[in-house]
């Protein structure tokens, strides 16, 4: 498997890996470890604006890299169900093979779950 430089950069540094706690943190998760891909986001929100975001991922390098990028780039933006970029754009940005693009939907679902407060931490 070949990975783009950006994918390797975010996979290797995995900035933003971890959890957040507190009353202003919303948690959302999607996927399943037993099925090979699981992603969780913790998002700290103040006044509708993302103050901080962390992620956990049991997943392939592409998924870890994109989750790390999302956690980093969501900060300072309105907190809403949509990702900072569309799945299509993220696929292209990280050169995700077409066979693996479905995994990015798990990232989107985890983010949406956090936005919905469905799995409040």
């Amino acid at each position, binding site marked *: 498997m070949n990975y783009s430089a950006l994918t390797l950069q975010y996979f290797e540094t995995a900035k933003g890996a971890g959890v957040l706690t507190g009353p202003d943190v919303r948690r959302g998760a999607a996927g399943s470890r037993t099925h090979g*891909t699981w992603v969780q986001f913790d998002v700290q929100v103040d006044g509708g604006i993302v103050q901080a975001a962390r992620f956990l991922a049991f997943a392939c*390098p592409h998924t870890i890299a994109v989750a790390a990028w999302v956690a980093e780039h969501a900060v300072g933006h309105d907190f809403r169900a949509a990702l900072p970029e569309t799945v299509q754009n993220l696929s292209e940005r990280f050169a995700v093979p077409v066979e693996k693009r479905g995994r990015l939907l798990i990232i989107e679902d985890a983010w949406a779950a956090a936005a919905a407060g469905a799995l409040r931490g």
Partner: protein
Amino acid sequence: MSATGRPVYLDYAATTPVDPRVAAAMAQCLTLDGEFGNPASASHSFGDAAGALVETARAQVAASVRAAPAEVVWTSGATEANNLAIFGVARYYREYGRHIVTARTEHKAVLDPCRELERRGWRVTYLAPDSGGVIHPDQVAAALQADTVLVSIMHVNNETGVLQDIASMAAICANHGGARLHVDAAQSVGKCAVDFTHLGADLMSLSAHKVYGPKGVGALLVSRRERERRTRVQLTALQFGGGQELGLRAGTVATHQVVGMGLAFALAAAAPESEAERIAVLRERLWQGLARLSGTLRNGDAGHSVPHLLNVSFEGVEGESLLTAVRGQLAVSTGAACTSALREPSYVLRALGRDDILSESSLRFGLGRDTSERDIDTAVAVVAQAVSRLRKVSGS
């Protein structure tokens, strides 16, 4: 990193570097000032010289596995040898029976021909190993049917290094009378004693590139022994066009390739026992180092395996990420099909009872001649760091 600045190579079960002595011998068979003749050319000295080298190589391979030179049929590798054995027996004995016995843990070079025969009307029984990867001889006995014509069981498993009791299986097949025993021994030579005569197999596949020889050459040993209850094994050839190799494998014999295989096997046979002991010590050092990590599971029965292989699963780690995290510093393989965008857990580890996730999160370490203590210590450090980091990322 190794002293050369390249990743530490611990994938000797996939392939080995060609021994420089082997490469030199091969080079002597290629150019005008060497023995470049066609070994089948009987009309001049060029052919005679090349033919003599081919027969010397045949004798070297035979001697290294305690076979007779006449039992060695050159092929392009173990895959072709497996195909020749399986299809060759199936076709020759098709009027006697159409049942084959093999194991779920065989290499694809055995499983895929068996599946193709199933598509063509043969019946195949796939034996399941125990949790250590061992196929017990009584399983073979129980699987034999009146019309069984072939049993194909590998000697050393390519993922776990587990050794099978071939001699007992051969006795069972001999007692059955109609079942011929084929053994894929691609991983055996140079790693454990291989005695074709003593093991009693009818057919045995060999590969050169696992033994510091070149890729692209192997052999099928075809027993010429008569047995009490049956005649010696027969094969139907799969390719035609020259009658070489007793009509079993048509095509000009590649002198340089077989010369390389012959010398590689001779060198392997001449290796001191202390080398296997050295490898065993290194593997134990590797295992002890990795076992210090929690959630580390050894795959395959350590008491029934060659010392050159160690297969380990790591809990709480995704397989593709693990391999990616170490690949800059280590050359190892994983239970997952890492060349595919879609994960495919190791069917060998699944047959041992590992679940999909643990089958994927495995690393196969293959140790070889140039593996050093420093390499092992590097591997332990790199894997420990990667596993710890990925567990942190996954919250495991």
